[in-house]
């Protein structure tokens, strides 16, 4: 093997390496920075690129896709001195490859520390209860802070989520107890309120019933009084009519009424179920006398036409109230 052969091999190697350095293919999703003698000049986007070997070189290969990073669990003290374990997740994307490559060393460590400290700040300003319930608020707060802080690094932090906020075991237990007590309290209050409401309703009903009853009695009394008044009036009128009839007619008309009452009373006595034996002075002749009076009355009424006409005006028909 001669000198020329050795030279040839060296030349071939050098050539291949130079070509390899000159032709660069950037895959989609990445951007590579280009340095001229170690100094940044420009960024290569995805595709085929040619660089003058030795003078230009590829600096950093930056991932331009959105990336997700776990925020490891850390102990955080809340405003009311409870220690909670918090972990989360960060979504970020590089928007400016050059800044991400050269403005910050250890990009991921930088983001992680920023997120962790901001989570501590956000939760530290809240009570335990608040930090458990206002997770969205914490997320937004941390996101805005971290996003602003990472702008100089050409980064966009799209989303920060707290995955888990875990209070210590005993605290969780007492929180559960508290919740249970709260529920029981509510249940008891509701029950008592129900009872009260029921009692009130019942009393109300009773009151209403009593009032209605009293009103009914009052109304009845009124009506009764009215009835008695009306009855008295009617009796007065009937008496008037009878006395008028007597004044203008035959005295035998009275005999008719008396006889009727007498017989009725006698009938009632006779029909009384427990009265088997009646001791009563009875003047049959009196009754017969009355009957004779009725006969005379009838005779007078049915005697002559002239008399009849006279009788119809003088003796009005007996009132049904008195007759009955």
């Amino acid at each position: 093997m001669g000198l020329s052969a050795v030279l040839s091999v060296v030349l071939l190697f050098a050539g291949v390496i130079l070509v390899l350095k000159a032709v660069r293919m950037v895959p989609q999703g990445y951007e590579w920075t280009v340095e001229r003698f170690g100094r940044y000049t420009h960024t290569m986007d995805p595709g085929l690129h040619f660089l003058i070997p030795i003078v230009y070189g590829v600096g950093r290969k930056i991932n331009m896709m959105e990336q997700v990073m776990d925020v490891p669990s850390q102990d955080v003290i809340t405003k009311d001195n409870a220690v909670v374990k918090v972990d989360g997740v960060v979504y970020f994307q590089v928007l400016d490859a050059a800044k991400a490559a050269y403005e910050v060393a250890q990009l991921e460590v930088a983001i992680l520390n920023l997120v962790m400290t901001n989570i501590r700040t956000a939760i530290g300003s809240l009570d335990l209860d608040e930090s458990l319930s206002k997770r969205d608020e914490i997320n937004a707060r941390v996101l805005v802070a971290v996003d602003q802080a990472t702008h100089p690094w050409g980064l966009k932090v799209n989303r920060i989520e707290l995955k888990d906020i875990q209070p210590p075991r005993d605290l969780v237990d007492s929180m559960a107890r508290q919740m249970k007590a709260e529920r029981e309290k509510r249940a008891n209050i509701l029950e008592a309120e129900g009872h009260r409401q029921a009692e009130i309703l019942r009393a109300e009903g009773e009151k209403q019933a009593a009032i209605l009853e009293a009103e009914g009695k009052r109304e009845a009394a009124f009506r009764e009084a009215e009835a008695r008044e009306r009855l008295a009036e009617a009796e007065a009128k009937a008496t008037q009519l009878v006395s008028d009839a007597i004044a203008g007619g035959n005295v035998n008309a009275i005999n008719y009424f008396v006889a009727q009452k007498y017989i009725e009373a006698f009938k009632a006595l006779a029909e009384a179920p427990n009265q088997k034996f009646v001791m009563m002075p009875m003047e049959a002749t009196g009754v017969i006398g009355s009957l004779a009076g009725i006969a005379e009355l009838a005779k007078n009424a049915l005697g002559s036409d002239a008399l009849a006409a006279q009788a119809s005006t003088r003796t009005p028909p007996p009132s049904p109230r008195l007759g009955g």
Partner: protein
Amino acid sequence: MQWNTETMTWAVVALLLFAAEAMAPGAFMLWLGFAAAAVFAIVLVIPGVPVLVQAAAFVLLSFVSIQVYRSWFRGREPRSDKPTLNRRTEALIGSVVPLERAIVNGHGRVQIADAYWDVTGPELPAGTVVRIVSSRGMSLLVEPAV
């Protein structure tokens, strides 16, 4: 024109390089393949070329083929049908969103899909619907959407 070990070697090298490019596309082996094919043609036409000259020609032709590609074919590459892939700010241009925070002294904020973006533009109160017209670095340029 004569077939010998040298011509055979260059032919094999050229084919191997083309095959390697086809198997693992990295582009650079393609130019080496063209160069090898050219050297194969030279030694086939002009017998007795020294090995050193052959190697030199191979290296030289590699760069020539790269240069030929750059000058002739560069502008004719088909465009991507998703030119804004991995370019978040450019992808947002044209979208219309309400201002989450008023633009004061040229700086405001909008919220697009969970992320908050700084916007620059004319003084506008919060809630104004704006259209993103372009992007400058990390912030978006907006104008009121009518």
